[in-house]
């Protein structure tokens, strides 16, 4: 198999006396969808935060594109082409959907106004509307702050933001949890499309049929450690659940 795009080895992360990661490893290859599954509290979100620069692991090693790297901040991860949909969404509730989509990457007006950083709100709103249409999201008004949107609408904005900007790797922490049936299908389509462009997609989900439908590989986290890896093809839901709950014999993978 080719060199992994991202290889995290034996990450450890403590919060006070709580051990969220106890030597977790994780691997993602370019051009694949890898599902990261595990019970509630297994450490999936913590792993994602460590791998997107939000948290700093207490121990362990991260290899990106063949070279050992540290991710001191989200900016560092973004610079490597890593985008993330966080489980807690990380949107600015007082800003409208377009502003959230372009947050940190605003478009400015062409010409001298742009030199002063004057925003091209119209263009951002137009393009945002387009992105939302792609994801099957319908908004009654684009002018309301995102805090007033429905749960699913808010999640769609976060998903749209990550896929618009990613170039190498996308982490998606339960991106479909609040989505309707149609929107969920659209997002899974987007996931496949992104994969086909050669990026790696890491999908966290508690929906096993969904995992098996879209993922190429599955890695299983349990109590802060990777305990199993599967090729999705030919694996059954029972096997996955067994690995997550520890019913199947564990191996420190």
């Amino acid at each position, binding site marked *: 198999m080719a060199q992994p795009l991202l290889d995290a080895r034996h990450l450890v992360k403590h919060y006070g006396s709580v051990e969220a990661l106890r030597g977790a490893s994780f691997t993602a290859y370019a051009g694949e969808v890898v599902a990261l599954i595990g019970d509630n509290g297994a450490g999936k979100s913590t792993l994602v935060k460590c791998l997107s620069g939000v948290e700093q692991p207490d121990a362990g090693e991260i290899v990106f594109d063949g070279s050992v790297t540290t991710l001191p901040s*989200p*900016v560092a991860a973004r610079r490597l082409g890593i985008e993330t949909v966080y489980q807690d969404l990380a949107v*600015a509730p*007082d*800003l409208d959907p377009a502003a959230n989509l372009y*947050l940190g990457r605003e478009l400015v007006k062409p010409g001298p106004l742009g030199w002063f*950083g*004057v925003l091209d709100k119209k263009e951002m709103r137009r393009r945002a509307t387009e992105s939302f249409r792609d994801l099957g999201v319908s908004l009654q008004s*684009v*002018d309301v702050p995102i805090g007033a949107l429905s749960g699913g609408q808010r999640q769609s904005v976060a998903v749209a933001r990550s896929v618009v900007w990613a170039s190498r790797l996308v982490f998606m922490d339960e991106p479909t949890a609040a989505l309707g049936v149609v929107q969920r299908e659209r997002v899974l389509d987007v996931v496949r499309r992104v994969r086909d462009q050669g990026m790696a997609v890491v999908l966290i989900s508690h929906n096993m049929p969904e995992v098996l439908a879209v993922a190429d590989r599955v890695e299983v986290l349990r109590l802060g450690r990777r305990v199993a890896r599967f090729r999705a093809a030919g694996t059954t839901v029972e096997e996955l659940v067994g690995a997550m709950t520890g019913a199947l014999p564990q191996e420190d993978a």
Partner: protein
Amino acid sequence: MSDRTVKQRLFGANTLWIGLVLISLIAVFGAIRPDAVLTTFTLQTTLVETSVLLVLSVGMTYVIITSGIDLSVGSVLVFSGVTSAMTMNALNGGNATNAGWGTVFVGLLVALVSGAAWGLLNGVLVAKAGIPPLIVTLGSFGAALGAGQLLSNGSNVAGVPNVLSSSLGTGTWFGVPNLVLLAAVVTAIGALVLGTTRFGRYTHAIGSNEEAARRVGIGVTGHLVKVYLLAGTLAGLAGFMALAYFRVASITGHDTDNLNAIAAVVLGGTSLFGGSGSVVGTVLGVFIPAVLRKGFVIVGVNVYWQPVAVAIVLVAAVWFDQSRRRARKRR
């Protein structure tokens, strides 16, 4: 999907009702004493007397939108005034009263740099060291005042150039006091930057959800430093304006500038919890108490009743504004 006009975006419907409050206050005072209230003179002096606070409040608006607070503005104003006046005096052998424009220019620069230095200190302590803004700026509130007293040895500094006080201090331009012009320009720029630029957008984003802003790659630390720097620099400018107006760098009398500025910002509809707010609202928030105080003096309200009356109108204004806004939302 409806599109908002520029006007709507700049003003925000939030400022409509509080604006109405201001207009009705003026109308009431005008009805009682039309001869004294609705005159060019009263207009001029009211505007002039609010100019300094307005400049402070513009900076405060930014700080509060990031969900911070700046208690130090009044002391920074004092400090900047002292350094500026002392520098101008030093350049002119101890008394700058008859100094020229060169001295004034240096004085302006010193005031701005002094203010910026305190702003930078605040910003670094808040953003990099992660100390709560209330504590940081309470600290610089005391420290800047103390430093000003140390420099001036505890007394007011006089010797302000006449060219400065007669031009910026009391001069007018087609009837508009120059001090007011300057404050208006600062306010307009402040409103435009906050409402239309990336800087303003980041200010809102950080106040709305600092962690989200950090995760999308906004340089939160740097931005916060810039916001406090801005507030400090504007306080420096305000110090220079006060120098021109009062012809003296006064050490006392600025203890409540911070609360006045904060009140103006909150009165103008900005939430203390950050995330939303507008400079236009702040302008209204500056003028309502100013108009009240002035009106009460002109109408001749008993001095002890004045604070009570101001308090009642303030609270009533915000209550009216809020209940109107809520009703609008319900509609």
